[in-house]
């Protein structure tokens, strides 16, 4: 059998139950045709079976269910009245469905059966409103012709005499299962040829009442002992227990309740453990440790009841891929790794649609047409790879294609056209930011509307749905090589590992999902490691600017931490990420990691998005769970673009933060020049020894990360007198202060005199001071500050750098 095993099994279990109910309901309905509820229920059941069949590719079953459904909808609309004949036909349909289901259960496929008679009957019944009087005699024939298959099979199954033939192979069926064809077994084991079997079958069809085996023996094709053996094989091939016997279906509500109780137990366990550690009673300690083990196992066990392999939803993808690929004339193969990776049921359900969309999207937009692929020197058949694996308490799902990759230029253009970003922003954005544009609402680069694009599930919905369950989506792409979408989701939502920190005397839990690393700045580092004053402090973490957020400030608590850091005590930084951007959260103390049970906050506290919920700690006290994204938004550390996207979603939040609040990097250039650029434009701050500066042509360059990075002296670029520290190489001492600006993988270094500060201000740009390289002036920290036009300066100094951008 194949991948879809799990789903099919589920479908079978569910359908058997539904069919049993259907029998009862149909019979009840016959007695009381006016029972609209029962009719509605019957209709829904058949509809569900039909839908699932279509999705699993069981076309025959679908066809039968389809006509049945049509007839039922007519009944529901009172265009046809329910009389015994209609009921009989419907019951016939139910039986046919049941037979096919058991065939599917044993053989994994529908088998070759002919339901045209039944379908014809059902179709005719829905067209002809049954006039009283004419029904019984006239319609008896066709129905009878649909019936015998049924009744004969039943009888035969009971007698355990098996006679199977090609035109009606679905014999000897029961709800339990259907054995393999006797002919098949004889062919395999006794060397009977298919011609001989066909001949025998033909004779049966012509009216020979004997069983297949008997005919074959008579013709000398095989010996009686072979037939007996074959019959035994056939018997043993019946599955020992059917799917419907080995599983029970449990109400998810009940599971949820058990899960909640286990959550409570975990909390109680934590309390007992703390208590036991204080009491020096060894017997109590032993008992509590036993409790600890059992609770852990119970928790795992209960979690497992809700776990399902991701393969359950993946198994539909080969078909999805096939259909989409066929629809757009592409050739795509699909590979899956880590099908067995398990996830909580609710999460599986929540990611099903987003994943389906991503897969369709990859085939529709990612992978190129076969001709284009050959031209590009790739294999004709595109490859789509799904990978799932556990990593740090999370499940990573990657959807990679080896297609054309994302076209950054097109994305930029589209974003500007749609008014998602301004042309200026478009030039400034990093590659990664550009890629992630595809997740913004109302953004589609699809140049034509296909059945995929027109489905109303955009990438923004994918992102929203994934984030709803605490996951993240990220896209990476290499032009010509393909695109990878990485979805990270938590294993479960109810109990999560979290880091406990202290701030101003209170404890807070931070979900480990958003945790990147912990940084401790001790002694001197505590003072020098944070470059800051008033507004927005930063820490240089391995050469990258890490914006810092003081938890006490964000939460508007008394600033114990800051006072501490001034006195040279250690600074604890929890590096978090929100929307893929890291930021440092400064807390008083980092305590421990703990499994916490997430509890929702009351309505009164819902408006505060800095908190994701609350939990009860081991000592029984309540602690708030911090929400990394909410904190970042509150502290304004995520880039403008994302702010905009967020602002669009939450107008109230935008109102609070003010119109044009920006985080700016202030620096001195020349002797007195005071300038600022948005921090979002700064890739890194670097220092270069003056000896490292080399010349290439007329330009000064440095080697930087294996690239040659041109240097632009801001003072020269905007015509200011040079400063003492010497932005010119040679004169002056100490390393060159360089602000690295990156655009589509290329970097350029802006040489400044001195980095002054990073501040967050409402910027009101006064264009009066506009001149080459300067966008205008603004008052920053009560001082007039020029806003540097970074792209402008870069273009003026190096026209080649932004060629593509200018072409737009």
């Amino acid at each position, binding site marked *: 059998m194949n991948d879809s095993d799990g789903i099919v099994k589920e479908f079978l279990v569910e359908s058997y139950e539904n069919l049993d109910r259907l029998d009862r309901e149909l019979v009840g309905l016959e007695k009381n045709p006016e029972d609209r509820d029962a009719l509605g229920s019957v209709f829904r059941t058949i509809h569900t079976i039909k839908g699932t069949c279509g999705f699993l590719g069981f076309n025959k079953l679908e066809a039968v269910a389809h006509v049945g459904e049509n007839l039922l909808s007519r009944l529901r609309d009172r265009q046809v009245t329910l009389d015994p004949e209609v009921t009989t036909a419907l019951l016939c349909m139910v039986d046919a469905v049941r037979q096919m289901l058991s065939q599917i259960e044993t053989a994994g496929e529908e088998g070759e059966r002919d339901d045209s008679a039944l379908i014809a009957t059902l179709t005719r019944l829905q067209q002809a409103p049954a006039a009283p009087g004419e029904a019984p005699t006239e319609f008896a024939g066709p129905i009878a012709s649909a019936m015998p298959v049924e009744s004969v099979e039943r009888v035969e199954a009971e007698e355990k005499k098996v006679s199977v033939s090609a035109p009606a192979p679905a014999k000897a069926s029961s709800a339990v299962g259907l054995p393999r064809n006797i002919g098949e077994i004889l062919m395999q084991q006794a060397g009977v040829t298919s011609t001989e079997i066909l001949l025998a079958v033909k004779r049966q069809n012509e009216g020979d009442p004997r069983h297949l085996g008997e005919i074959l023996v008579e013709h000398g094709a095989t010996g009686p002992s072979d037939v007996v053996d074959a019959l035994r094989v056939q018997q043993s091939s019946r599955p020992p227990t059917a799917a419907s016997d080995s599983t029970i279906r449990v109400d998810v509500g009940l599971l949820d309740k058990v899960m909640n109780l286990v959550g409570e137990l975990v909390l109680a366990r934590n309390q007992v453990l703390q208590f036991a550690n204080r009491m020096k009673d060894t017997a109590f300690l032993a008992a509590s440790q036993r409790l600890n083990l059992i609770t852990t196992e119970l928790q795992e066990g209960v979690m497992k009841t809700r776990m399902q392999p991701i393969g359950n939803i993946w198994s539909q993808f080969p078909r999805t891929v096939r259909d989409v690929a066929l629809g757009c004339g592409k050739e795509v193969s699909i590979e899956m790794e880590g099908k067995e990776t398990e996830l909580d049921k609710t999460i599986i359900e929540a990611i099903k649609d987003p994943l389906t969309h991503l897969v369709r999207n990859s085939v529709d937009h990612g992978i190129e047409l076969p001709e284009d692929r050959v031209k590009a020197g790739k294999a004709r058949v595109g490859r789509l790879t799904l990978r799932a694996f556990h990593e740090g308490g999370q499940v990573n799902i990657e959807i990679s294609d080896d297609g054309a990759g994302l076209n950054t230029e097109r994305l930029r253009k589209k974003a500007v056209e749609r008014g998602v970003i301004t042309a200026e922003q478009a030039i400034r954005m990093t590659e990664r930011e550009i890629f992630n544009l595809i997740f913004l609402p109302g953004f589609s680069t699809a140049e034509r509307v296909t059945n995929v694009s027109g489905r109303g599930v955009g990438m923004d919905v994918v992102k929203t749905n994934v984030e709803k369950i605490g996951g993240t989506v990220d896209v990476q792409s290499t032009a010509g090589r393909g695109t990878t979408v990485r979805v990270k989701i938590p294993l479960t939502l109810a109990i999560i590992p979290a880091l406990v920190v202290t701030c101003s005397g209170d404890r807070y839990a931070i979900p480990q999902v958003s945790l990147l690393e912990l940084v401790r700045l001790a002694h001197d580092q505590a003072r020098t490691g944070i470059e800051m004053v008033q507004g927005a402090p930063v820490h240089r973490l391995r050469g990258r600017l890490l914006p810092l957020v003081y938890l006490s400030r964000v939460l*508007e608590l008394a600033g114990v931490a800051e006072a501490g850091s001034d006195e040279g005590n250690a600074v604890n930084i929890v590096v978090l990420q929100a929307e893929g951007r890291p930021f440092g959260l400064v807390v008083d103390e980092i305590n421990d990691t703990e499994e916490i049970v997430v509890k929702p*906050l009351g309505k009164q506290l819902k408006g*505060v998005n*800095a908190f994701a919920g*609350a939990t009860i700690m081991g000592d029984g006290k309540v602690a708030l769970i911090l929400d990394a994204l909410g904190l970042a938004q509150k502290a304004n550390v995520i880039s403008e673009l994302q702010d905009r996207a967020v602002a669009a979603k939450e107008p109230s939040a935008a109102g609070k933060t003010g119109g044009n609040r920006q985080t700016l990097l202030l620096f001195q250039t020349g002797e007195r020049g005071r300038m600022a650029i948005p921090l979002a434009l700064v890739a890194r701050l670097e220092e270069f020894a003056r000896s490292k500066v080399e010349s290439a042509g007329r330009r000064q360059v440095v080697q930087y990360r294996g690239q040659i990075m041109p240097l632009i002296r801001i003072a020269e670029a905007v015509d200011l007198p040079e400063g003492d520290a010497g932005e010119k190489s040679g004169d002056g001492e100490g390393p060159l202060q360089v602000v690295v600006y990156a655009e589509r993988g290329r970097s350029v270094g802006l040489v400044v005199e001195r980095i002054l500060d990073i501040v967050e201000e409402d910027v009101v740009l006064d264009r009066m001071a506009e001149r080459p390289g300067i966008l205008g002036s603004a008052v920053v920290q009560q001082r007039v500050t020029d806003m540097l036009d970074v792209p402008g300066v870069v273009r003026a100094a190096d026209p080649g750098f932004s060629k593509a951008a200018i072409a737009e």
Partner: protein
Amino acid sequence: MAQSEQFCTFFIEGHFFGVPVRQVQEVIRYQEMTRVPLVPQVVRGLINLRGQIVTAIDLRRRLGMGERPVDQLPMNVVVRTDDGALSLLVDEIGDVIEVEEKTFEAPPETLKGVKREMIHGVHKLPGRLLLVLDTERAVNVAEAVTGAGERDP
């Protein structure tokens, strides 16, 4: 409507308050609270009510009264609302009393020191007045923020 109604009574800054008994889930002594930053002052914190996290609202603050003396620990009157249980912090718990409907009257104009809009009305009892708290209004923290509750005279 019933002829008489039972009230769970409590005291806040000397005033005698009551909420209908059917709204009250339980009354518990002072519980340690976890403060919640960034929310209106009336929310004093979160308490752990047998594994359930319950928001505690300080009625003194909600009713615009003075702060409770530091050495006086508030009591929790846990009420059921449409959004689950909520705790009302009060000074002291009184008895459950039964009052007759006919003693009920709209809040008098002369009522001082208490936001009148938080009061459904008063029951004139022998020797004292029972102020009937409008629970729904009292737990509406959003209203406390926007100040809508203060607009009325």
